[in-house]
């Protein structure tokens, strides 16, 4: 695999191969010296056009544990603020010959576009409201650890589906792994046509008990300015996952950061059903596996020879 741009591009075999390797790397994270030389001499560039703490630091840790060199490039304080275009920035950074670029932008399709401009392997760390494939992989990894197989499981994704790249990647990933996905949220935050992805659409939590896994999405405060829901209070009353709604055998997930008291009540965040810190921990090993896949895995396979010149398409 040359790039990781979207879950849509991955088969179940691809996902399982990456996650099996992640499980192997998990052992590294438990060592005293948390480092293997797998990517020694390789350079990984973190190019973040959006604020991120956990994803960026998790990629940075992952690269360092594989002995790669890491350069962080944040949009603020850079030439981007001076008006440089994405393409010019990428071509400039490509001149330093990075082996992989981890990119997050507020625009759908930007990672794929960047992949057409550079010889580096591209890892999509979130492109607008489109996809966030490493989040979905780490979520599947967490569930495989917790439940074994996802086959036949019912997973409810609850919240602001319209503005969530996590929801889109997870619908595709969970379904690829054999689960049935239900999306649930306010009708004003449910994208028209989402059912064409194969999921069930619900507007209330009445049947939440059928879920094996409840995946709550972050309710972004900034959406409140646009009046998609009357108030956060009403949102919480209708959609908050709390101890009345969450069953003892259900697994609770959240991509973070959590708004306690909005999408999740404080007590469920701290409940044994919640696997939120497992997800964070999985983030590093899954991203190690992804970096290994696109940098070393591709070299092993020799399937796609790298172009020698940037494609200025």
């Amino acid at each position, binding site marked *: 695999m040359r790039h990781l741009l979207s879950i849509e591009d991955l088969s179940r075999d691809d996902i399982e191969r990456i996650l099996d390797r992640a499980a192997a790397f998990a052992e590294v994270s438990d060592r005293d010296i948390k480092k293997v030389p797998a990517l020694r001499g390789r350079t990984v560039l973190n190019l973040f056009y959006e604020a991120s703490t956990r994803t960026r630091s998790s990629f940075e840790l992952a690269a360092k544990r594989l002995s790669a060199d890491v350069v962080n490039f944040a949009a603020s304080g850079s030439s981007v603020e001076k008006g440089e*275009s994405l*393409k010019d920035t990428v071509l400039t950074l490509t001149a330093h010959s990075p082996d992989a670029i981890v990119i997050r932008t507020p*625009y759908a*399709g930007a990672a794929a576009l960047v992949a057409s401009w550079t010889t580096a392997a591209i890892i999509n760390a979130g492109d607008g409201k489109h996809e966030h494939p490493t989040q979905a992989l780490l979520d599947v990894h967490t569930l495989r650890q917790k439940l074994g197989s996802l086959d036949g499981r019912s997973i409810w994704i609850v919240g602001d589906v319209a503005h969530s790249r996590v929801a*889109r990647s997870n619908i595709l990933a969970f379904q690829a792994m054999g689960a049935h996905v239900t999306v649930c949220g306010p009708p004003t935050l449910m*994208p*028209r*046509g*989402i059912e*064409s992805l194969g999921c069930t659409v619900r507007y209330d939590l009445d049947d939440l008990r059928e879920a094996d896994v409840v995946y709550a999405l972050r309710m972004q405060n900034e959406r409140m300015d646009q009046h998609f829901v009357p108030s956060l209070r009403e949102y919480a009353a209708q959609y908050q996952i709390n101890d009345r709604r969450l069953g003892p055998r259900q697994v609770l997930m959240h991509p973070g950061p959590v708004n306690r008291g909005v999408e999740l009540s404080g007590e469920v965040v701290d409940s044994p059903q919640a696997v939120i810190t497992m997800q964070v921990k999985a983030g590093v090993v899954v991203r190690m596996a992804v970096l290994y896949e696109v940098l070393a895995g591709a070299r092993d396979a020799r399937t796609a020879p790298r172009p020698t010149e940037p494609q200025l398409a």
Partner: protein
Amino acid sequence: MTPPEPTTPGGAHAEARLVSAPSRPAGLLVHGVHVLDPRTGLDGIHDVLVRDGEIAEIGAANSLSAPAGVELVDGAGRHMFPAFVDPHVHLRTPGQEHKEDLETGTRAAAAGGYCALIAMPNTDPVIDSAPILGALFERAARDARVPVGFMPCITRGQAGRELTEMAELRAMGAAGFTDDGRPVVDAGVMRRALQYQRLCGGVLALHEEDPALSGKGAMHEGEVSALLGVAGIPSVSESTMVARDCALAGYEGGRIHLQHLSAHESVAAVAAAKARGVKVTCEASPHHLTMTDEDVRSLDPRRKMNPPLRCAEDREALVEALRSGVIDCIATDHAPHARDEKEVPFEQAPMGTTGLETAFSVVYTALVAPGTLRLELVIEKLTSGLGLIGLLVPEIAVGEPANLVLVDLDAEWVVGQNGYESRSDNCAFAGRRLKGKVLLTVAAGAVAYRERSIMLSVTSSEGHRSRQETSSEGHRSRQETSSEGHRSR
């Protein structure tokens, strides 16, 4: 205090102007070509003689011989149609000449088989006053390879509040009025424009979109936008405005032309309005007729346009409406953008695709060659757009000014492979293999485009001609094809 006297007489009988640069009247004899003109009923192999820029003779195949100084063109296996007209293009002049100008835009038009265009006013500054319109006519008289007309804004600054000085603009030769690129959001302003039309004439050409519904959308709202996580532009953002403006036009007895219909709901609204006698015409673009939101899956910014490519049901409704006559013409909405403006993520990219160089071949390849639409119908729809606003309807008939296009329907070509005549290369069809190639375009009596292979096959019946002989045919000092008796509605 009395209002100032208008500097020029206005009124509903003012004539729209089409202006082009001086050019040499063509002298051509096309031998044995399949002539097809849905209006004159010609459909067969003929010889067509053009002398001094006029169609001088139409004879039986291989019956005519070329008079001295007339170029001979082999028409065998080729088709001749009336040249196409486009009531909706963006030539980006003034102010955005890095995207296109009158010279490159009309060169692209000629290469696509067009003989006349109407340019939209969303330039920088916008075309909303007499001095700007006057300057453009002067520029066109210098730079335009095919005749160009201009539609100034309905509202000052294209801001949707105050009407422009429509009577004065009309008296200068405005082809109609439009705020294209933007809707006239305020129904009260729209109504006032329709009322004022009784004084100044000129069709109001409308971009139908309710911005409260389209919001920050970047593509059609549907299954593909749901998958891509791109904010959608719902089809009702168009169809509700179509219904509103048809109601207003019906109430005021006004004449409107609806631009680039994209949604099946809009087609239904126009059909209903036409049935109850509203004076409304409308257009569809080659991209809306042949592409859908499935073609946006790759998030290629060249396929981002407004209105967006919609779903299969919408596309099929547009094709059916073309067939049934609900849609009156095909217009390209040729919208050039510089490469660096389009080489950005989809959601950041400006709306629009170029279309003049590909229009015929796209429609022919996707709709005529597979048998969905008849060739005559497509030719009729590609040549009717200016007639709808009271301007030129090109015809192949003796005595008419030569507005002709010679096409090889079997020739295949790949869009963009040899570059573009347009200054911009943001073509939604880039890389597609198309059937049907324009070989020669005669616009307003002059050869405006010649494909390289045609150049080689052209022979002069009298051998090599000298420059003197050529110029003795006489230059037109300033060729103005102003509506020639066609009155505005």
